[in-house]
């Protein structure tokens, strides 16, 4: 295991309220069938970790949840709202769902503080002073309030990723999606980002995390999902998933990365 996050396992904060419901969802890139008959339900407070080899469709899956990618068949219902051609719904869901990218995607022409207040001010129509206050609160939560007036280019990768997390949080989302948040980071910075994510999990946030950080998965996940070639091959609680993988492909994969 390559990182030492909290070894204690978090208690599940799952409830019965459905936050994400994916039914028979299919997606193609041209002729290429990326996601095949995906069924997945995530309840409020549940934390899912998705892993799998590259090209297995795991990133595409969570990008579909945020409507960054369009799916062609099946339903995605987020917080009771169906994703489709309805632009109002798409805009609404995007404000409710936070997303953290592999490459941070911070806005380089704005300061850290402006990065955080942009959404609340322009989308949530919050008063500027209030937005700044909330932004500072989130910056403190990710432990870099002193960087507020710097530009993203002046921060290290780990700090940038923590800002990206704070930026998503400042929209007060109901769900957080993480798309390989630590893959672009140097090893010594991975821990600071994972720590922030563990703390976030402790607050009861609904999270879906695409990652290969298995220590992290073991700590926070209610369920670990293994994807391969557009299929959900195996899903299980972390305990059994790691100690006792059932599917042959899962075993192969785990052997390679552990």
């Amino acid at each position, binding site marked *: 295991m390559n990182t030492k996050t909290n070894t204690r396992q978090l208690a599940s904060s799952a409830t019965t309220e459905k936050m994400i419901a994916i039914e028979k969802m299919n997606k193609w890139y041209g002729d290429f069938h990326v996601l095949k008959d995906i069924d997945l339900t995530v309840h409020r407070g549940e934390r899912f970790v998705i892993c799998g080899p590259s090209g297995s469709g795991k990133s595409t899956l969570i990008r579909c949840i945020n409507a*960054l990618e369009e799916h062609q068949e099946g339903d995605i219902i987020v917080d009771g709202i169906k994703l489709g051609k309805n632009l109002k719904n798409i805009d609404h869901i995007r404000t409710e769902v936070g*997303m953290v990218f592999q490459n941070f995607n911070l806005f380089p022409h704005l300061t850290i503080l402006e990065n955080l207040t942009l959404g609340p001010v322009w989308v949530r129509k919050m008063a500027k002073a209030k937005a700044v206050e909330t932004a500072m609160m989130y910056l403190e939560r990710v432990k870099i309030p002193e960087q507020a007036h710097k530009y993203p*280019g002046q921060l290290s990768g780990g700090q940038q990723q923590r800002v990206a997390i704070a930026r998503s949080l400042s929209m007060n989302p109901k769900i957080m999606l993480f798309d390989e948040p630590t893959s672009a980071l140097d090893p010594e910075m991975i821990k600071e980002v994972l720590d922030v994510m563990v703390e976030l999990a402790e607050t009861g946030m609904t999270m879906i995390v695409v990652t290969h950080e298995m220590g992290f998965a073991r700590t926070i996940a209610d369920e670990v999902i293994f994807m391969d070639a557009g299929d959900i091959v195996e899903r299980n609680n972390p305990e059994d998933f790691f100690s006792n993988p059932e599917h042959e492909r899962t075993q192969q994969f785990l052997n390679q990365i552990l």
Partner: protein
Amino acid sequence: MAIVTLEKTTARPAPLSETTALGWLRINLFSSVFNTVLTVISLYVVYLTVSSVFTWGYLDATFIADNRRECYKNSLTGACWAGIINWFNNMFYGRYPDAETWGVNSAAVILILWMAPLWMSRVRGKILIAVSVVVFYPFLAGYLFAGGAKSLLMNIMVTGAIVAFALNLLNTLAGLFTDTSIKEALIKVLGQSTAAEGTQRKVLFALLVLCFAVVFTLQSNWLVTEVSWTRWGGLFLTFVISGIAMALSLPLGIVLALGRRSELPAVRVLSTGFIEIFRSVPLITVLFMATTMFPLFMPDGFFLNNLVQVIIAVTLFNACYMAEIVRAGLQAIPKGQFEGAHTIGLGYWGTMGLIIMPQALKHMIPNIVGNLIGLLKDTTLVSIIGLFDVLGMLRSISKDVPWLGLHKEPLVFGGLLFFVICFSMSKYSRHLEFKLSAGSRR
């Protein structure tokens, strides 16, 4: 066994061949036989050019004379700069009445004062300054140039321009001396720093309205003598045409570029077609089209004067080139920026206006300056269709009776004038490019 050097080697001065002028000469000019031959040939070329230009343009030249014959009396082989000096005013103002040129000059000074704060790091509110220039300045300048009676719109806009200009000056001073914006400075002066945000806003707004009202009444009696556009000319006209065309073609170019990158096929096809048609034909054909076909396009009883036709033509033409610059700038923005904007819930216009355009515009500045240089040079073409821009004025010197046949000197002078303007601008744009690329490496 390890080899260890305990003492630090001290740095010694380089051998003379690396540092002295002689060493430099040897390395850069005479490193081989071939190089030496090249050096000698270039020296000869430089000598020939410089000496002949210097002799013609300075040693043998005539600077003071009343007509071309006197020039010849002084020297047959030298330049006759006297003609240029005699026509100096005309070259800059065309046939603009001498008594009214103060209007042109003050418009130029105002523009410089208005824009200068954009380059000062301590001044706040740069976007507002830029917007105020674009919105208000054209009306003030237009009035200073054309004069005459003011319509209601003109009254309002001239007032707005004066107020905006004054505020801009105060804002600059506030920025330079107290490092605050005019807003904060005013609040402080009025002793409202502790008041609620709403009260502050109300006070400022009241102040603004008051200023506007006062200036409006004061300026309504102010009349500038009317000058017909047909008397505009020279470098002044060149700047008017290229300035207006530039200011209008940037927004139009942005619209066209967004259209060309649109996801809607119909919008994309229309924008692409428009851009490609104008980019594939020479400017002169567009100018001819403007002068011959625009009158046919107009409804009954509606006329565009020649100048307006030309400005429309140059604007449409330049907007298509600007669109390609904007498109290149947009393409340079990584896809992740769009996705980042989407995930915090920004729509198309929010994404473009707040995230993409500010970044793209910054990267485009060097290309935009390059385009401005090209536009300035291209504006000389209007002399072909009978406007008296700087080249038109220069060429009419040779038709003036005392200077009949004086062709070469005006052209050389015009070339020099453009060279100075365009070269300094291109140097500046390269400096900007360097600064920007240094910034992105940070």
